[in-house]
């Protein structure tokens, strides 16, 4: 028994070591950082302990901008992408020929590099001295006025950001929803057919409740994912997100840590903890309400 004990711990040793150094210790450390006021990374000294860092972050216009951007992103992209994914999955499940082809195509964005395709999006939307950009030409064609989506007005930039985010998150949602729609037992639909249930009612009273656990899961992970948005913003607007006013909370954390405005791990920690608090709250709400959706 004793020998077995030692052996088991040996098997676990690498995992425990890596997790200890790169997850558990940082977890404690980040709290300490966030409480150390006036931390200087060069001299590694600080003045005192308190909540000043949090207050600084919460009063920092850049953070507030980042918070606003992130919230808009969450509120817009999660419902839009989930709804659209549901619509597409319903369509996918109702056809037979070409279904595989469509599914393959829809999954492509999942395996592409966010930064790389973001660059393509930027070029499609960007208005330069030489060219209007393809999207603007399209707008012109329908009689609209061209807008600079990348360096122009805030709403235009937000729109591109949302569009790109939706484009990126759709493959996963379509995949999961198509799967869970297909797993609904056909007998339920036959039973509904015998009863003369209208298609509309079949959808609301049968399909939707049956896939609601999965839908709920997608919404929650969608929320969490959108709150952590960062690299899509970098892909579209470059690394200096504060300058373009398109920063996200995660972006704010990294900017505080490193880069031109970096060197403030305390502020970064405070912001990261605030983000965690938001995500944690959502997860808790999730766990609470989830029970209602299970049967």
């Amino acid at each position, binding site marked *: 028994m004793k020998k077995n004990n030692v052996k088991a711990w040996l098997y676990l040793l690498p995992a425990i070591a890596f997790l200890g150094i790169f997850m558990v210790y940082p977890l404690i450390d980040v709290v300490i950082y966030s409480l150390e006021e006036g931390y200087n990374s060069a001299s590694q000294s600080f003045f005192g302990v308190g909540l000043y860092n949090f207050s600084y972050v919460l009063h920092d216009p850049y953070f507030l901008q980042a918070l606003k951007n992130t919230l808009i992103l969450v509120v817009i992209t999660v419902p839009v992408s989930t709804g659209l994914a549901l619509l597409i999955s319903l369509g996918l499940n109702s056809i037979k020929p070409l279904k595989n082809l469509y599914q393959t195509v829809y999954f492509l*964005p999942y395996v592409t590099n*966010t930064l790389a395709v973001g660059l*393509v999006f930027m070029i499609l939307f960007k208005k330069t001295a030489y060219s209007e950009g393809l999207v603007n030409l399209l707008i012109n064609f329908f009689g609209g006025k061209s807008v600079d989506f990348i360096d122009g007005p805030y709403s235009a930039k937000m729109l591109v950001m949302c569009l790109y985010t939706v484009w990126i998150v*759709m493959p996963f949602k379509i995949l999961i929803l198509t799967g869970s729609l297909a797993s609904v037992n056909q007998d339920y639909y036959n039973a509904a057919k015998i009863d003369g249930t209208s298609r509309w009612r079949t959808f609301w009273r049968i399909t939707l409740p049956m896939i609601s656990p999965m839908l709920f899961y997608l919404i929650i992970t969608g929320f969490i994912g959108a709150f952590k948005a960062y690299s899509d913003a970098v892909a579209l607007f470059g690394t200096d997100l504060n300058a373009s006013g398109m920063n996200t909370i995660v972006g704010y954390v990294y900017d505080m*840590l490193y880069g031109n405005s970096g060197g403030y791990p305390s502020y970064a920690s405070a912001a990261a903890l605030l983000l965690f608090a938001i995500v944690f709250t959502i997860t808790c709400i999730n766990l609470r309400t989830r029970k209602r959706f299970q049967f």
Partner: protein
Amino acid sequence: MKNDQNNRFGKNLGKFVTYALLSVWGVIVLFPFFWMILSSFKSYGSYNAEYVPKFYVSDPTLQNYKDAFTQVPLAKYFGNTLIFTIATTAIMLLVIVLAAFAFSRLEFRGKNAVFALFLSLMMIPNELVIITNFVTITNWNMRNTFWGLILPSVTSVFYIYLLKENFEQIPDELYKAAKVDGTSDFKYLYKVMLPICRPTVITVVILKVIECWNSYVWPRLITDDQAYFLVSNGIQEIRENGFGRENIPAMMAAVVVISLPLIILFLIFRKKIMSGVMRGGTKG
């Protein structure tokens, strides 16, 4: 009878609308890919001369691909990413397989407590620990090294969990039979458990490779020497400092080159990858 015809007409119309909508989304998905490939074959001159961009290439050129490999160290980024992806995935696999084996097959004191602790770590977002990890790696003088890139991402509680669940489905009798035959634990793990759980292992590898290939944030923090840039950082570098001037066709060529490996991988292992993502996605 008339009703029947109406019905059939309605059905056909419904099918048509469905296919039309699905195709619209298909075009939206494919268009960026089409555009990057198209632009990558246009010469610098002709791209900039087209005020209204053409949907075809009048004088296809490979110059952009040449530029992408010569004017910026794209091959270097590529090689770095390959090393990073393979090394990270391989080390991670070793770490998680050993841990999952201990949790599923071995009995030791405190097993449940340790596992519960592991599970609770699953809730911790990466953003929270990255700050200290950045400081740690800096203090270890590992910035701009492969170890600095690799080490923080070689464990995943989620994958340990996934693998452990799968290991536990293997009937006890197999283990006992192996013990009777005098098979060592390690050999049993290697010869019996891993082959049986191959689908899960493949899932994990696929997910990890995709994650590695697209990772941006950590490499950006930990490398500022171009010699250690991964493709994501490379593409950002190309975008910001690029080819000396805003050479969009060359950028697109670079984008095509770095997108291609995963897309090819995906087209080959389409079923495996999709079912893997589905399993990984719905277990959590």
